């Protein structure tokens, strides 16, 4: 992964790059020391939310770029739960970066690098690291997130991630506490009819999960 980031950094105008996982936090960075890991983790979290919101609106989303006066930040999801973002000078070549991202994405997928691989991290950045969850439970969450989207629209991704974060802080990440997570989501939904609709949508998924 280090080599991949170094390749991105060698592109003219690119100051450095980071890999962020919403579940494992900041995994690796080759940005100058002025960019503190804690801040990069927070930026990664914001970009992850922004990317999720973008993907809920556009299913053909490629990347998200934020153009500030001094710098440009470009984020691309390499695979599910694995986001790479680079900080560039405003004069950077977006087409070249897009091409490099494409190659990187292919390389990561071919190499089978997982979002929660511990080879390169995660970096110790306070509360960014989350407890490990089973693949099955992650699959269930993923389904629930999509179904919440049918009830709440584009905001669903953000709301799901935020309620999941609160739920994880409240106790163990296990199926026995799933009703507490649903309750948190119901509070966000607010509307009783929509809550009923959401319940109707997720019930089959919960039953499938419990059947194994």
């Amino acid at each position, binding site marked *: 992964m280090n080599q991949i980031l170094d390749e991105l950094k060698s592109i003219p105008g690119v100051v450095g790059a980071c890999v962020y996982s919403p579940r494992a936090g900041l995994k690796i960075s080759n940005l100058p020391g002025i*960019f503190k890991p804690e*801040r990069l983790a*927070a*930026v990664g979290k*914001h*970009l992850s*939310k*922004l990317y999720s*919101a*973008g993907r809920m*609106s*556009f299913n*053909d*989303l*490629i*990347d*998200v*770029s*934020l*153009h*500030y*006066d*001094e*710098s440009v*930040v470009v984020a691309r999801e390499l695979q599910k739960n694995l986001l790479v973002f680079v900080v560039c000078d405003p004069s950077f070549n977006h087409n070249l970066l*897009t091409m490099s991202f494409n190659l990187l994405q292919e390389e990561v997928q071919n190499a089978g690098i997982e979002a929660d691989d511990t080879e390169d991290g995660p970096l110790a950045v306070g509360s960014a690291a989350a407890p490990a969850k089973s693949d099955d439970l992650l699959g269930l969450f993923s389904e629930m997130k999509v179904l919440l989207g049918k009830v709440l*629209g*584009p*905001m669903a991704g*953000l709301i799901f991630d935020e309620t999941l974060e609160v739920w994880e802080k409240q106790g163990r990440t296990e199926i026995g506490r799933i009703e507490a997570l649903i309750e948190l989501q119901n509070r966000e939904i607010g509307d009783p009819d929509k809550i009923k609709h959401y319940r109707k949508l997720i019930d089959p998924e919960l039953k499938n999960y419990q059947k194994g």
Partner: protein
Amino acid sequence: MATAKEFVDRVARIDGVSGCLLMRNDGVLIGQTINDSEVYSTLLMISGRQAHDVMEKVGFSYCRHLGFSRRDNCHFYVFPILDNYLLGVIQHSDCSAGDMLDTVYRLIGRVSTNRADVISMGDEYAQNEKIP
């Protein structure tokens, strides 16, 4: 002088723009030239907030715009205007993005020169308020 609605219409007439919407940062939609504004307006709100948060975390000074690149080349851009408004612009699939962005910047620059007038776009008479 132009009303907020005229401003939106002028943005929509820029070469390469297929549609646009203008929103106050409290979520009030001021003008639009697209039909499915609900999807875009939600994204507009989220984008404005997240871009501001990233700016504060890193210490950048000003967000010029955000871009959502799409495979069909109908990219979506978000322009914060004077901390109070968000302009969303949808690009035609076959245009020069650089030229289009420059023209949008110029137009925003013109309406941003008189803060008081621009702020008036957001009140209850938004559609009829005058802007430079």
